[in-house]
């Protein structure tokens, strides 16, 4: 029977199942053991798998990320949790230059099966250093896969695929999604990395969104449906590998495109996808592309100001209408 569970629980279950399947898989990070992780994601893992597999580290991000590289090139399959994805800047050299390039730099002699678990996103007062969505940073780092689930089922299925992948995978989890619920398919549930999901079918305009923004895009689509507008929502479920074909297939149908992401606009992930479309499929566009993103400012710590920073459903509705008029 399919079961309903939270996004956080789905992530915990994916890790537990993979650790039970493969003794080389372990998890480490700050406070992932008895404390159950900063957001409760690792609840029950210590009891289920023991202290050899569920490891509290010192407050040392370069160690967490870099030692995972050392463990991976000597035969283990680490899951390294950074408490916030913002901390990837602290461990930038380890993630970008070591995990991403070690195999290539050393003639293909090593594999690096590492999952970096990266809780991202604005979710209640985290502010400028505990709430970013830095996936575009990593797009400039060849060698790293970038995976971003938006539902509990995808969180579980993509994380299991990431753990089985022989490449380093940066796995973004939106902190604002941890408590959301969804159905998880029964049995061995794997979701392939690099394959988009059409979250809602439509014919008038394509909205590309991922992570928490998928849900806002779906709300906008629902609202516009009442006005007779048919919106297709494409969730690429990650950036590398990018399922550009899915986006282009949708665009062929609609001719109109809106991007929604929580990262700031300049140099954000949408910019690169738009560039690819401009290079490959400019003739498919019936109207200018719209972007709904965070502004180019740091994230406010004030929860009163957060909704001004993060794209809201009504902004997406407005952007879709502009795309239709353009």
């Amino acid at each position: 029977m399919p079961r309903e569970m939270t996004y956080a629980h789905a992530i915990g279950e994916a890790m537990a199942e993979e650790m039970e399947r493969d003794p080389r898989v372990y998890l480490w990070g700050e406070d992932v053991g008895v404390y159950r992780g900063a957001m409760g994601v690792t609840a029950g893992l210590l009891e289920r798998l023991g202290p050899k597999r569920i490891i509290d580290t010192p407050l040392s991000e370069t160690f967490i990320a870099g030692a995972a590289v050392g463990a991976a090139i000597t035969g283990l399959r680490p899951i390294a949790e950074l408490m916030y994805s913002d901390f990837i800047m602290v461990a930038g050299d380890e993630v970008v230059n070591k995990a991403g390039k070690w195999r290539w730099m050393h003639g293909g002699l090593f594999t690096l099966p590492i999952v970096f678990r990266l809780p991202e996103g604005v979710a209640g007062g985290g502010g400028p250093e505990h709430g970013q969505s830095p996936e575009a940073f990593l797009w400039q780092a060849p060698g790293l896969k970038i995976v971003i689930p938006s539902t509990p089922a995808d969180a579980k299925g993509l994380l299991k695929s990431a753990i089985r992948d022989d490449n380093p995978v940066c796995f973004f989890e939106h902190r604002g999604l941890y408590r959301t619920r969804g159905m998880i398919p029964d049995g061995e549930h794997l979701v392939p990395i690099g394959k988009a999901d059409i979250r809602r079918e439509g014919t008038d305009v394509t909205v590309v969104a991922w992570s928490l923004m998928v849900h806002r895009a779906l709300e906008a689509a629902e609202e516009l449906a009442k006005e007779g507008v048919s919106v297709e929502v494409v969730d690429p479920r990650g950036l590398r590998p990018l399922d550009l074909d899915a986006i282009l297939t949708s665009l062929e149908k609609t001719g109109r495109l809106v991007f929604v992401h929580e990262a700031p606009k300049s140099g954000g992930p949408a910019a690169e996808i738009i560039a690819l479309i401009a290079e490959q499929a400019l003739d498919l566009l019936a109207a200018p592309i719209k972007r709904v993103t965070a502004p180019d400012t740091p994230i406010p710590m004030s929860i009163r100001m957060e909704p001004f920073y993060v794209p809201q459903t009504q902004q997406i509705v407005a952007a879709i209408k502009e795309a239709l008029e353009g």
Partner: protein
Amino acid sequence: MATKEQLKGFYDTMVRVMLWENTLMRMVDEGKVSGFYHPGRGQEACPVGGVAAMGPEDYLMYSHRGCGYQIARGLSMTKIFGDFFSTTIGTTRGLGAGIVHHAAPELGILGQSGTIGGCFPIAAGAAFSAKYRETDQVCVCFFGDCTSNRGTFHESVNASAAWKLPVVWFCENNLYGVSSKFADMSGNPRIVDRAIGYGIPGVEVDGFDPEAVYEVTAEAIARARRGEGPTLIEAHTYRFRGHGYGDSQPYRTKEEVQEWMKKDPVPRLGARLIAEGLATQEELDAVHVRAQKEVDDAVEEALKAPFPPDERLFEDVYA
């Protein structure tokens, strides 16, 4: 105590390392080498004595100075030259590697971080892996004095101490990081004292004496293998050449260098072998002749190999 055979072996390997570098330096001058090179002349006793103490299954994180570690560990000179010449015979099969990025998993040579100090977390991770897999492998990580001022050093040595990881932190203190004196850049010029702060043993050794280096490293490895955790070794040494190609060395005097060169580990061990009746001058001369031939043959073979097609760039980015 090293055996007589080991002492002769140290001499042989130091000469090979020295002559390999002399030849590489000439080829740098001739413009045949891509990538950076940081000469290790003068410091040969550290890689040669230290690596000799390692077991066949142990892991090596080599330092950015000279290629003595790789040569002492058994990586063929041909492959190393191949990396410097960017021919397909190198360990990177033509991508090129300078002072870093040679690797040989079958020898436990794990490669090296281009950003200096990136070695520390990786070495700690390899040691963690050995402990996790319940092998008795040890990771030996060589690094320079000024590299120990990276934050990665603190995070990694601390974690290795907290978890008693089987790793040996081997610092070659040659007094300088490029042009900066370690003593000017550090509150305490004694690196070995840092061991106290981490609650691990710290040992000093004469970095010009391969036998002494071998002994302290062997003891640290044995301790790590027994599950008693890491050791910090500080070897006192000096580099006779500049930091890299084109270093005019304005930060030190010729007199200072000449004074240190009196400690040259190669003639020093040679003189000892003769004094103790372990070798004759003729035998030592023969070591040099054999080593130079090995170097010359390796150069020839490495140069003979082809360059890879440009498409090589796209291989191995992903598994």
